[in-house]
């Protein structure tokens, strides 16, 4: 026993302490509890992993039977294999850094303890999600992180846009969760169990489905769940709005951990997907579409957090592309490196926003290079990594993905390369608009305190060196053997130059010729407006889905079902009771004699009925 349960337990304890007594504790104490619990869980995870090394096969700990009903037996089991080990390190490691950062960032905010209670609760559910050994326990974590995400997006609940964004995230995720839930039912019907090892074992015994069958159905439904949680086309719309939450939340939940749950879940179900090529192809195309669409939107945004939000959606699309072409380990590698540099981008953006007293519009920034040098330095590291500059962390995982995609389909490869260039372009754009040129705002920028920039420095090192340090495909070799391992030098040159091209183009447009973007936008006209307005997807959903539901609820549900049907039924039941008068009223007259009469009547009826039924079987026996 390595007491894996302690890993999620520490944050849970932190949640309970801060949630129950946080109001009475000082901010320092709340921060210590929050950070301490996550660091403890990180250390315990490390200790368990060292004890379990080399972890060639999964280590399972069974605690008790959780649910038992007929043939449905679901044990409360936590398991660690190499995939979970990587996720554990990302979640607790980056979680610790972000918790530390947040104590500085949230210091002046109302509801300090509430924030950390939610954050710790999130850690608990996220760790449950990655440690679960069956689909149902994973679902508990899955729903739990969704709940915490909702609570934290709407953290500034007095702000209307924040609570609306929270609701949007919640509702969109329910659509995905419905898909996941149906998939779980189907898995149970098909395999008679929900345990990962047993399901995967059974799936391997089934033939590969060349035409649509039950496995394809299960995988597509799982994919619906993943598109909700990991913000893929068509359910990605909630993630950009989710940036209404505090910046550490954007970094932890909406960039580094929760949104990668879909990637993790699909990887966990790899054996199912490998036997359903149609579903695999769908995963790849959805990922590619998401990557392209979100990257192009990213070019046109002015809110610094929105840029990074679309960037996250786009990078998640990259991960799905990797999964879809069967490069599971490359996808997970990108999860890891993306966690480093995207958390850093968000936290750095938070540092900028903090420095400028809550200014998020990049048009009111500029020239901050000298004013907040540390923030600039660390953000540069993230910038290089996401742009895919050779030997940074992002370069490794991106090249691994593109290499696998090229093997699968050259067309997808070229679209992917173009997207990489666009990615480098919009991130460079945001950097140039923020740090180069003249300062265009009115605030007095100040550097953030060490408690904020120290975690940033750690992430900066990881963003640069993380890819070389953690060779994920090598770690995952026992689970996902690499079929086409040879590196194609040509592909790497093409991929790297795409990134550098994007940076160069952005330099030309935003530093060398600052007037150029405006004239290009004017000359593109309709196309620019289409992209700037995010392809009008929100408007389309609003017209096609939201408004019909609202109107339908108003006329159908409210006026018909509620007022007419339910009220009518309730009132009708009332008048029926009155109309029956004698019956129900006498039953409840408060008069003992009447009650006794009912007892007699009931007894007589029952005795006659029972006697008649029993007697009908024959007289004496």
């Amino acid at each position, binding site marked *: 026993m390595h007491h894996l349960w302690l890993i999620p337990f520490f944050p849970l304890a932190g949640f309970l302490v801060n949630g129950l007594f946080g109001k009475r504790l000082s901010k320092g104490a709340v921060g210590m509890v929050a950070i301490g619990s996550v660091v403890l869980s990180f250390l315990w995870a490390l200790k368990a992993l060292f004890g379990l090394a080399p972890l060639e096969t999964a280590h399972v700990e069974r605690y*008790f*039977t*959780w*649910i*038992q*009903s*007929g043939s449905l037996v679901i044990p*409360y089991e936590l398991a660690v294999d190499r995939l979970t080990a990587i996720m554990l390190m990302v979640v607790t490691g980056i979680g610790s850094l972000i918790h530390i950062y947040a104590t500085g960032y949230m210091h002046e905010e109302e509801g300090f303890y509430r924030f950390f209670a939610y954050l710790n609760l999130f850690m608990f559910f996220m760790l449950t999600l990655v440690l679960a050994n069956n689909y149902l326990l994973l679902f508990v974590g899955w729903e739990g992180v969704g709940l915490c995400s909702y609570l934290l997006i709407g953290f500034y609940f007095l702000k209307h846009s924040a609570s609306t964004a929270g609701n949007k995230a919640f509702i969109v995720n329910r659509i995905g969760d419905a898909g996941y839930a149906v998939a779980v039912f189907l898995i149970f019907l098909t395999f008679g169990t929900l345990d990962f090892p047993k399901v995967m074992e059974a799936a391997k015994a089934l033939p590969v489905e060349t035409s649509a069958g039950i496995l394809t159905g299960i995988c597509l439904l799982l994919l619906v769940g993943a598109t909700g949680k990991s913000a893929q086309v068509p359910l990605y719309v909630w993630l950009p709005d989710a940036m209404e939450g505090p910046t550490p939340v954007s970094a932890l939940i909406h960039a580094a951990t929760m949104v990668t749950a879909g990637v993790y879940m699909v990887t966990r179900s790899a054996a199912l997907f490998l036997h359903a090529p149609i579903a695999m192809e769908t995963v790849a195309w959805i990922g590619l579409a998401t990557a392209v669409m979100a990257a192009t939107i990213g070019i046109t945004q002015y809110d610094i957090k929105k840029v990074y939000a679309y960037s996250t959606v786009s990078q998640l699309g990259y991960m799905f592309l990797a999964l879809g072409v069967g490069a599971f380990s490359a996808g997970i590698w990108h999860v890891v490196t993306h966690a480093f540099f995207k958390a850093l981008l968000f936290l750095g953006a938070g540092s900028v926003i903090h420095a400028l007293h809550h200014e998020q519009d990049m048009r009111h920034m500029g020239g901050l290079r000298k004013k907040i040098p540390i923030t600039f330095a660390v953000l540069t590291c993230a910038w290089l990594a996401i742009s895919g500059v050779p030997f940074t962390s992002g370069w490794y995982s991106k090249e691994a993905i593109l290499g696998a995609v090229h093997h699968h389909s050259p067309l997808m490869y070229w679209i992917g390369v173009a997207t990489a260039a666009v990615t480098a372009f919009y991130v460079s754009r945001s950097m140039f608009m923020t740090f180069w040129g003249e300062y265009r705002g009115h605030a007095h920028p100040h550097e953030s305190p060490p408690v904020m920039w120290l975690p940033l420095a750690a992430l900066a090192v990881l963003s640069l060196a993380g890819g070389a340090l953690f060779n994920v495909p090598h770690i995952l070799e026992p689970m996902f053997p690499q079929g086409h391992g040879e590196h194609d030098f040509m592909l790497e040159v093409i991929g790297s130059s795409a990134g550098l091209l994007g940076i160069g183009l952005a330099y030309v447009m935003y530093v060398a010729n600052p007037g150029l973007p405006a004239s290009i936008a004017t000359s593109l006209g309709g196309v620019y407006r289409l992209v700037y307005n995010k392809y009008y997807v929100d408007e389309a959903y609003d017209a096609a889905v939201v408004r019909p539901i609202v109107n339908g609820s108003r006329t159908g549900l409210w006026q018909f079902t509620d007022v007419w049907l*339910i009220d009518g039924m*309730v009132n009708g*039941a*009332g008048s029926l009771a009155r109309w029956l008068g004698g019956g129900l009223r006498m*039953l*409840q007259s*408060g008069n*003992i004699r*009447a*009650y*006794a009469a*009912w*007892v007699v*009547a*009931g*007894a007589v*009826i*029952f*005795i006659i*009925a*029972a*006697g*008649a*039924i*029993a*007697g009908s*079987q*024959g*007289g*004496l*026996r």
Partner: protein
Amino acid sequence: MPVNFVPPATGEYIRVLPEIVLTIGGTILMVAEGLAGERHRRGMAPLALVFLLLAMGGAVLAGMNPGPAFTNLLIVDGYATFFRLLVLVVGVLSVLISASYLTRENADSADYYSLILFSLCGQSLLASANELIMVFIGLEISSIATYVLAGFLRKDKRNNEAAIKYFLLGSFATAFLLYGVGWIYGVTGTTNLQEIHRFLSSPESTYSPLMVGACAAMLFVGFAFKISAAPFQAWAPDVYQGAPAPVSAFMSAAPKAAAFAVFLRVYSVAFSGLTESWQPILWASALATMVIGNFAALRQNNIKRMLAYSSVANAGYVLVAVVAHTETGVAAAMFYLAAYALMNLGAFAIVTHYVNKGERYVGIDDMAGFARKQPFAAALFTWFLLSMIGVPLTGGFFGKFYIFKSAIDSNLIWLTVLGLLNSAVAAYYYLRVIVVMYFHEPGEAALETASIPGGIRLALIGSAIGVFILGVFPSAVLEFANRSAMLVR
């Protein structure tokens, strides 16, 4: 002394330890007050708690020595232990919420606690009764103490009315039961449950099925009254509304659980061969109980009366599991009764505090703004109400889940569908309370409400944790119930 008299072995005394402890404890309490004098009246609740905890220890000890006792009059098995512990837990929670109530009403008295102990003694006997005369005796011990408790505040007219009603109707219904016992003896020549079963299923015995069917129906009248099943539920709303709030809490959980325990045992053991003759009756009764309870609760404005109807409806759900007549059905009923006891006690604990001196604020509207004044208590109340609705993560959810699952397994599709529709209706009246607590401006009652006394607080937290554990880790209790359910036959 009969010639073949064998003195009971030590093991047999151990098997009735809880009854022994409760009887001695109740007697000591009555005497202690006289000896200790007026000033120590408030010390009686802790003393009662001590006896209850001892009795629980006794029940566990008895459970570790399973077997029959006193020439097969009683039988101690897992099933009996489950219900003994359940009613004792209800007893502990009831004592916890009663102390501050009695002080507020200037009615501190050891008699109250000794009555609770005596009543529990009867229920403990019912849980382990293996013979119809014992059933009758247990039922009477339990009921007589409860009649007195219902009218405990002698000067309160509502209390008096409740006690008289409960007493007269209760005795009337028990008469049917006793008559049924007499007939059974007449037909089979025995009152022992196993022997009745043996007689009825043996191909050699001759009897009139018509008479046996009528006997089963008469026994049913007595049990149905105690569990407030339709059409014998009429007393429940009046009595729960009139009795002191903590007594209503006690009555709606402990005697009901014990009556279900013996009801299930009698029908699963003695009459298990005659399923066809009593199943249609139970089917109709279960449905009527759910419908009457839920639809009547919709229109109530008195919170105690609403909870009374809700308790009727809940009895209907348990009856669904009885109709299923399988081991999983019995286990589901046991699980549900445990979950129901906890959530109902929790809800009544809030009501006990909230009604204030003289039970002035019993309207649902009086709960207005409660959440603003007492956020913690309101949150727990919400938790209990959500459990009654059957929202996941609560014990109520798994309770309903197991009951309806066992019904489906027994092909009771229609009963399941109608039962689920009923529980949807129920959501309406529970949610109404939550809405009033959270979204209405605080009224007079909310402004007057004092901070929650320690005993009630303890009971609230205890039941809330219990409901949570049953809702998240149901298997522990369910496995025990499943194992015990097998022993009933």
